[in-house]
């Protein structure tokens, strides 16, 4: 059911294009109503775009531009996802954050930032002096001039979030099409025909554009205009689990207009992350890392937590933010085209995803979609991947991936799931297998044997 190869002229009520965290959240919410839904994804799996390469923080939205669409949706999305995550096995941890100023100029902006937080309805941010900052985070480098505590920032498992949404959508009847890039569309009076790369077609009454980095391309296929995406690359370094005791909470920099800046954050998997960089580039597929990017991160990291740089690096990756010429999200609808666009969701889309889904639903209704509650909604549960809850290896089972302590049963289960792992990347995001410090030195061969996959799957 999950992967029908369709040339279906019978229209779906809604087709959601893009199975990142945003599109998957939309499909999940729509699947709660008596509608026929398809989630159409160009990649081989859900969550293979920007949604798999971010800093994995569930933001309170304290620093969003007050009054913006983003500020509203991040605040709402934060509350929704914080409450939803534990019910389906998405790991979250409330570590809080401390925003650290490193010179007098930065220290002088703390009051502005606190006022901004309050303007966003976030009242718990508190300015502290350097002594208090060091009392909270004793491994910070010298030169702290002040700080602000944001106790409600959370860590979240970014991989499981879109997978949970898509799994719930599929459990409630949504059709998931992968390897299905939409390349053209014909909008008729009642039906929009979407053309898929391999010649398949799919008909929709309503279309939601959640195509992330390619959102503007799809937008233009509908004859619409208004924004152009210019990717802003963010490179990240993940440090070994032995670095985890070096910090208690997320260490944020003072943000600039261009970027939230380089942070150091724990991950729910027990590692420490340093990044991201922010480089405007033209290639929407350039998710590689660069010498300059990595060297720059190490230099910044050495200032923030000097001891961090002595620890081993486990992984390096880069994600592309769907930045546009505007500073806000580009959310739009068109009644004549029966179209809702969720564009320019650049650096907070993981947090805002469930609120963006509500927004999409409200806009679909405003342009003529009528919805009726489904009689029963099937709920789902994933095995939590985080370190804060019990992991399967702790109750027995044969460990295959030693660095991340993943059992054989978890690997088999991930390959047989309703939204299954189809390659090593998908397996890594569903189980953590191969994501650890040895990067396959010990277990790659065993994982190949268990899955039956060739080494380059």
């Amino acid at each position, binding site marked *: 059911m999950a992967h029908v190869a369709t040339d279906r002229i019978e229209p779906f009520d809604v087709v959601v294009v893009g199975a990142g965290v945003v599109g998957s959240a939309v499909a999940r919410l729509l699947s709660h109503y008596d509608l026929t839904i398809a989630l159409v994804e160009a990649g081989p799996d859900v969550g293979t775009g920007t949604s798999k390469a971010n800093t994995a923080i569930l933001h309170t939205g304290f620093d969003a531009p007050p009054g913006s669409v983003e500020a509203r949706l991040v605040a709402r999305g934060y509350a929704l996802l914080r409450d939803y995550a534990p019910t389906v096995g998405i790991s979250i941890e409330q570590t809080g954050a401390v925003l650290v100023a490193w010179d007098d100029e930065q220290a002088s902006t703390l009051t502005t930032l606190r006022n901004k937080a309050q303007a966003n309805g976030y009242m718990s941010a508190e300015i502290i002096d350097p002594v208090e900052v060091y009392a909270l985070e004793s491994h910070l480098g010298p030169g702290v001039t002040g700080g602000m505590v944001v106790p409600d920032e959370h860590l979240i498992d970014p991989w499981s979030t879109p997978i949970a949404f898509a799994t719930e959508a599929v459990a409630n009847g949504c059709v998931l099409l992968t390897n299905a890039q939409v390349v053209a569309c014909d909008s008729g009076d009642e039906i929009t025909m979407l053309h898929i790369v391999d010649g398949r077609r799919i008909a929709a009454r309503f279309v939601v554009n959640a195509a992330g980095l390619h959102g503007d391309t799809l937008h233009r296929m509908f004859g619409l205009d208004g924004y152009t995406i210019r990717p802003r690359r963010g490179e990240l*370094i993940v440090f070994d689990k032995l670095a985890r005791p070096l910090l208690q909470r997320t260490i944020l920099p003072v943000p600039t207009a261009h970027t939230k800046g380089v942070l150091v954050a724990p991950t729910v998997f027990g590692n420490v992350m340093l990044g991201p960089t922010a480089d405007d580039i033209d290639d929407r597929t350039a998710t590689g890392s660069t010498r300059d990017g990595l060297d720059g991160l190490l230099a910044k990291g050495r200032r923030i937590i000097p001891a961090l740089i002595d620890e081993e690096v486990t*992984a390096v990756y880069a994600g592309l933010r769907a930045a546009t010429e505007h500073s806000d999200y580009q959310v739009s609808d068109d009644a004549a085209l029966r179209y809702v666009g969720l564009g320019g969701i650049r650096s907070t889309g993981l947090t805002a995803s469930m609120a963006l889904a509500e927004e999409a639903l409200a806009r679909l209704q405003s342009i003529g979609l009528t919805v009726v509650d489904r009689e029963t909604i099937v709920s789902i549960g994933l095995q939590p991947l985080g370190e804060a809850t019990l992991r399967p290896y702790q109750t027995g089972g044969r460990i295959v991936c030693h660095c991340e302590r993943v059992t054989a049963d978890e690997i088999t289960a991930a390959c047989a799931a309703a939204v299954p792992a189809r390659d090593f990347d998908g397996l890594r995001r569903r189980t953590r297998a191969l994501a650890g410090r040895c990067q396959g030195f010990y277990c790659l061969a065993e994982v190949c044997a268990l899955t039956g996959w060739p*080494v380059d799957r």
Partner: protein
Amino acid sequence: MNLADRTVIVVGGGPSGLSAAATMRNAGIGRVVVVERERQAGGIPRHTDHLGFAIRDLRRVMSGPRYASRLVDIAARSGVELLTETTVTDVSGTGVTLADGTAIHADSVVLATGVRERPRAARLVPGDRPAGVFTTGSIQQLTALHHRQVGRRAVIVGAEHVSFSAMSTLRHGGCETAAMVTSLPRHQTYAVLRMATATRYRVPIHTEVDVAEIVGRRRVEAVILTDGSRITCDTVVFTGDWIPDHELARRCGTGMDRVSRSPAISASFETSRPGVFAIGNLVHPAETADLCALDGRVVAPSVARWLMGGLWPHAVAPLAVEPPIVWAAPTAVGVTLRVAEFVTGRLQASVNETPVWTQRRQRFVPNRAIHISQTVPVGASLSLVRGR
């Protein structure tokens, strides 16, 4: 006090752990348990499918897999209990904790968790992240244990012993080597090993360059070197650049050598945590397997001494070294050290600047575990007197 009432747990069933366990049983220690996380004990030699093992400990020449099963047999015959598919998650001087939370009490613990190669990410090699990037350890297992095809055309990063061993493994698995790349001015293995592999298969060795970038979206397409050259390949194997599996050691708080990242040990393998010993390539990354096995034999009497109420040495610290020596650590038969460059000179041990001994002149090769059959007195520092 009676050795027969005592329990020792050995963490890791490679050559060092298995030999330690067998020797401790033979020395009269009542219960010796080897805990090994893999399905089979034997450690790295299980998948180093070529000759050259067992020379110094068993005094014969065997293949890696035969050597591994031989060591398992010897341990079993000595009455060692072997727990496989069992992971230790924490250790102390009085026992270990297993992955499922079970605590096993012991009177002493021997860490023998070995060494791995730094993978690509740990070396911060930029570029795309395609499939086709491996370490020697993973390609050995893929070919020797699972008979898998790795690729068709490889670039090997590194030119030390294990890099040439990787070349043979690739060759046996039907993958040609396009080039070898080393940041040093020359390869770092024995001339014979080079002749038998790189020369024979006509593989160029690019010296004094690093990999600047890996190219390829799904599968590796090429590597770009720091001199700007581009080598077409579908496989990259990162070799050597050892990192000890030191997680348990660090979690239990043993003092560490900051350079080798091994737990610091005394000449009789005590760490700074009373009751916790460390041996094998965990403490001297990376020596040959037979030398690791000899560590196991030498640690046994020192464990027995501790169990009989012996004293724990009070300041266990890394051996002091001067550049170009980067680190040095005791072994069963002397000391192993590493240097940062090709250099000829005499190795000297001094206490308070006064030489205690000076070795005869020799050539030192970087990226090699250089093994010296002489012990270093407590408090001594090692230096190299350069020159012909």
